[in-house]
């Protein structure tokens, strides 16, 4: 009898029944489809490590859901929707498995992603916890029909932007009010909105710098002031709409430019089939030299510490960042894997031939900066957002003063909280 029981136990262990992994991808339709496809392929290839996929549960934001999951010890084994800025809090609570424990982690990570990009994700304690997965460069998107009809080219500098904006901004029905604007900019005081206007333009103007350096504000500089002035002038001259709209002013043709990443392509196709658009680098201050960087909206993969199968989870993670999986990521979601030589690799060549609009974002992936890893990042961006609103949107305070105040607030946040 005991022999039979032992045999059953060995069989069960051998089949790996106890090793089912849980995997949480993002809950947007394209990424659910991607995750479903990849998990099906994985379960076919590795029946010894079955994976169960569940989209991130609904909540106000992925970050809040993940924090709740960590606290309630219901986090999955693997999650692929990690905002690098959130890592500080997770690392502090020892919620993530450090990758240094896997012998082949350097070969895998540096073999796929540029070393400089990998290093950007190293945590303050010197360890690597996150697997760089995808980074969507945030770029200028323009309405190609409007630009072509006016013989305009996408602006590269603030000077060129102002010239184009004068042509693009107009009162088309002659009622004395502007009804077509140069660019769509959100006026809502929401911390994450600033990632897609102030922060993106700051990364471009500063040559790839981020907001913080050793827990201190690193943005009290001319680049940040020039960005704040750029937006202030835009609102003052009505290049950007200072009003609430019921729809998407860019897709409705009421704003000629927007700031977005390659993920927007699927959205455009869904909402306005046949919409003609193009991507262009973020405009920089006149006289800017060197390559143009931008904010790379990165989402990475982590293994949570509550996993009982870290080695199996690591095997699955390696599959998620394989060449084949990266190809699926491109095809299904149009999002950019953090992979070296993406546009020169023949494996991806036919994808970019079929999707020429995505070539520019793919090329830009080599020059992106993520957000800083800080437990206070949301509060810092919230404070910057208030300054942006006061200075740029409503013109209440001068750009120099707004940047100085935001930098001072960062110091206060670190000192007090």
């Amino acid at each position: 009898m005991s022999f039979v029981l032992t045999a059953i136990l060995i069989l069960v262990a051998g089949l790996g029944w106890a090793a089912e992994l849980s995997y949480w991808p993002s809950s947007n339709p394209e990424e659910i489809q991607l995750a479903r496809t990849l998990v099906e392929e994985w379960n076919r290839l590795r029946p010894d490590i079955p994976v169960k996929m569940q989209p991130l549960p609904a909540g106000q934001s992925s970050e809040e859901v993940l924090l709740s999951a960590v606290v309630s010890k219901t986090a999955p084994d693997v999650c692929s929707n990690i905002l690098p800025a959130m890592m500080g809090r997770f690392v502090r609570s020892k919620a993530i498995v450090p990758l240094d424990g896997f012998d082949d982690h350097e070969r895998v990570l540096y073999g796929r992603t540029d070393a400089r990009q990998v290093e950007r994700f190293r945590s303050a304690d010197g360890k690597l916890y996150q697997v760089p997965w995808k980074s969507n460069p945030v770029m200028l998107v323009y309405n190609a029909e409007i630009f072509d009809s006016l013989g305009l080219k996408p602006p590269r500098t603030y000077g060129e932007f102002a010239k184009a904006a004068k042509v693009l901004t107009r009162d088309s029905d002659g009622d004395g009010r502007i009804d077509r604007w140069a660019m769509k900019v959100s006026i809502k005081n929401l911390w994450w909105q600033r990632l897609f206007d102030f922060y993106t333009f700051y990364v471009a103007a500063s040559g790839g710098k981020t907001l913080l350096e050793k827990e201190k504000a690193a943005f009290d500089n001319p680049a940040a002031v020039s960005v704040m002035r750029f937006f202030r002038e835009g609102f003052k001259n009505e290049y950007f709409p200072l009003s609430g709209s019921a729809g998407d002013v860019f897709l409705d043709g009421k704003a000629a430019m927007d700031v977005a990443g390659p993920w927007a392509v699927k959205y455009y196709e869904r909402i306005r089939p046949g919409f003609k658009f193009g991507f262009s680098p973020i405009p920089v201050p006149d006289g800017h030299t060197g390559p143009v960087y931008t904010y790379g909206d990165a989402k990475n993969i982590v293994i949570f510490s509550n996993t009982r199968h870290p080695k199996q989870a690591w095997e699955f993670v390696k599959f998620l960042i394989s060449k084949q999986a990266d190809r699926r990521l491109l095809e299904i979601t149009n999002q950019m894997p953090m992979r070296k030589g993406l546009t020169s690799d023949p494996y991806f060549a036919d994808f970019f031939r079929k999707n020429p609009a995505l070539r520019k974002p793919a090329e830009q992936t080599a020059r992106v900066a993520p957000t800083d890893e800080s437990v206070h990042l949301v509060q810092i961006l919230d404070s910057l957002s208030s300054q942006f609103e006061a200075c740029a949107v409503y013109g209440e305070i001068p750009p120099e003063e707004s940047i100085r105040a935001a930098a001072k607030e960062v110091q206060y946040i670190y000192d007090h909280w």
Partner: protein
Amino acid sequence: MTIGRRPAERAGLLFVSPYLLFLAVFSAYPLLFAFYLVFHRWDIVSPPVYVGLANFSYLAGDVKFWRALLNTALFLALHVPLQIVFSMLIAMALAEKIAARGFFRAVFFLPVIISGAVVTILWQKLYATDTGVFNQLLACLGLPPVRWLTSTKLAMASIAVMATWKNMGFYVVLFLAGILNIPGHLYEASRIEGASRWQDFRFITLPLLRPTMLLVVVLSTLGAFSLFIEPYVMTGGGPLDTTLSVVLYMYKHAFMFQHMGYASTVGFALALLALVVVLVQKRYLDTEAHY
């Protein structure tokens, strides 16, 4: 006498125990834990750290908190009178023998049962500067568009109007019940004496509605203190923090910045203020109606 000694008492305790358990788990425990957090700093993932009265001293010097409090007071000053006037007027109209009275009673109550988030999104579209219905109506009259939600002067008033519309049905029901409770012979007697409709309202309806009025004032004041969903969805607290309410500010600290201790302090401060305001209202409005 010891509770629970007699069989009837034991049975009674048994019957109320599910509710007591619910109260303990979902009200008493969170309340006590929130009070514990007032003296701590806690980011959800790390253990709480005792900070004494640091949260209170920060609150005293927190400009944004005082700004949020002022905004909430402004909302209160706009919303409560609007709520009382319109609810009472509609209740009076619905108390009359008008055609399709049942239909109108249901229609006015409808917004109350619709989700707050849905109503807010709907009104956001009505308020839209370019395609919103209100500005389309103004355009028909040859008037320029109004920035309902993006003007620092108008945003809070726009929210107050929307909140009044959303909650009015509930207060209409309360006023209607109060009006229908007033004995009809009082009006008959006043008519015989030659009183006008206005005199009926001024000397009969209004005084006898005072208990209902107190209830409406207290409930709408408490509702105004907990203003959250409208600015959260419509304005995010802007423009320039003019619609930042205390509850929205508390939410930001709790769930965006993970400052649970400070958010609890803000919550207790607000509860204390609401209690003071309600006690003052009770002091001045609490009189019994004598028929």
